[in-house]
């Protein structure tokens, strides 16, 4: 494996490996702020009774295609010949492919040979038995031998909970700006989801997720579930697992709030004063979710010190979500009046 470039531009602090890659691919064709419009609240439970917290239930491909005319396609594979044929077909057609990999097998990741972790990178080309790789998150651009890379993708079925290897392709050439009506629709959808409970009891329908996940709370009641879970974390034998899930999931909450503020600012539907206030609140909320995510991570190391601050901060986040609903409703009424 060789590395031809490192130290690219700094990452957007609220992008993860997947959203960052998608933005890189879409950026030449469209303003990326218009891709991410989901800002909701859900709690899911798996069969082992572990709870997960997410700001959306739409898959990545559905979210970015919904108002933009962008075509995002998901594919999954069980065998190396199928995977190889798919990668080569798209590369021959000049398309990059976003691929799910295990970082355990990636020499440029800090978790190489130490930890299994799901991660997204893109394959951008092929030359003499090697794929050209671009990893936005780890700032890596280089190549990897073909068979070695196939293995990186297929081991997610043996080393992690995935049933198959997963890929996305994105065609952003047909991008069109969301209309003002679509923009209003996106805001209305978020408001409805934040204040309703119609999704509770439903399973999660995402091609990447294979385990059975049922929605157990929606909107502000997500905090009741989180507070209950937090109360039990000290006594739980799985406290490290629970804190790790909360850390990852609240980071996702942070991203959704910040990226939604960028979405709101990218369209002029009037009521600029209300939008400015809402956007500033979303950015503050994003930061507070990120601090919370970090505190969960820190509590895995210094348990007592950070754990005691988790509960009051969670209660404060709930209050901030109440304010978000009020400001979003006010803005929605102003632009639809």
């Amino acid at each position, binding site marked *: 494996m060789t590395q031809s470039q490192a130290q690219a531009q*700094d990452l957007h*602090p609220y992008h993860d490996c997947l959203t960052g890659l998608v933005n890189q691919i879409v950026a030449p064709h469209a303003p990326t702020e218009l891709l991410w419009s989901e800002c909701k609240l859900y709690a899911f439970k798996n069969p082992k009774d572990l709870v997960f917290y997410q700001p959306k239930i739409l898959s990545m491909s559905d979210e970015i295609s919904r108002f933009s005319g962008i075509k995002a396609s998901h594919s999954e594979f069980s065998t190396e010949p199928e995977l190889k044929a798919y990668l080569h077909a798209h590369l021959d057609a000049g398309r990059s492919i976003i691929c799910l990999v295990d970082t355990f097998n990636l020499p440029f990741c800090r978790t190489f040979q130490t930890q299994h972790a799901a991660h997204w990178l893109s394959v951008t080309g092929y030359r003499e038995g090697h794929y050209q790789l671009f990893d936005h998150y780890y700032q890596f651009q280089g190549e990897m031998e073909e068979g070695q890379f196939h293995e990186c993708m297929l081991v997610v079925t043996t080393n992690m909970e995935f049933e198959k290897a997963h890929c996305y392709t994105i065609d952003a050439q047909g991008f069109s700006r969301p209309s003002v009506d679509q923009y209003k629709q996106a805001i209305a959808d978020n408001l409805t989801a934040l204040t309703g409970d119609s999704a509770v009891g439903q399973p999660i329908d995402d091609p990447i997720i294979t385990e059975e996940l049922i929605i157990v709370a929606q909107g502000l009641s997500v905090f009741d579930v989180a507070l209950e879970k937090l109360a039990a974390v000290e006594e739980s034998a799985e406290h490290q697992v629970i804190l790790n899930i909360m850390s990852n999931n609240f980071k996702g909450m942070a991203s959704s709030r910040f990226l939604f503020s960028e979405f709101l600012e990218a369209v002029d539907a009037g009521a600029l004063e209300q939008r400015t206030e809402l956007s500033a609140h979303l950015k503050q909320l994003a930061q507070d979710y990120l601090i919370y995510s970090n505190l969960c991570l820190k509590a895995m190391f210094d348990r007592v010190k950070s754990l005691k601050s988790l509960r009051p901060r969670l209660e404060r986040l709930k209050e901030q979500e109440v304010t978000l609903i009020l400001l979003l409703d006010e803005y929605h009424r102003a632009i639809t009046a």
Partner: protein
Amino acid sequence: MKPFHVDLTPFLNNAGTCTAADRTGGFTPVGSCYPAEHLPAYGSAVVFEDKSFVFPVKTAEGYDNMELEAQEIGVPRAAYHQIDLLGACFNGSYFETFELLLDGQVVHRFQVKLSNFGNNEGWFGEPTVIRCPLIRAKNMDLTNVTASIYGHFETLAEPILFDTIRAGDNPFMHIFAITLRGDF
């Protein structure tokens, strides 16, 4: 204007710098540090443009920077015109509200914006004052990334009389030095 270098020693609570031989401590929970040999000597002067700072002296516990926990830092009662800070964040780039107090009452608030220590440049546009060519992890030096300390320079519209600085409450923002300036 005269500088007053605030003594942060009683408030230091994080060991954020280490050597290759002794990697104890950690700027981050997983133990990543600034490499001490690429930083100013402990207790030495740091000059950036027209501003001067004193790099902290490592305490007996090994602490060398202040993780924000809403500390109240007493300073000589005087009218100051400028508040300059050196610091950085980890796992994010953050803004935090600092308060200036006089006799226990808040007389002014301002926002400090500091970026993630591993950034190539300040996310908020703040200047990089010190850049180390690597990040020191527990078991290796990460040479494809850099570790930076940024500057936040707050100029007050007019001199404000205060005797205490109250930091924000965000353990992921760290301060290495504070210098006040004024005609006192």
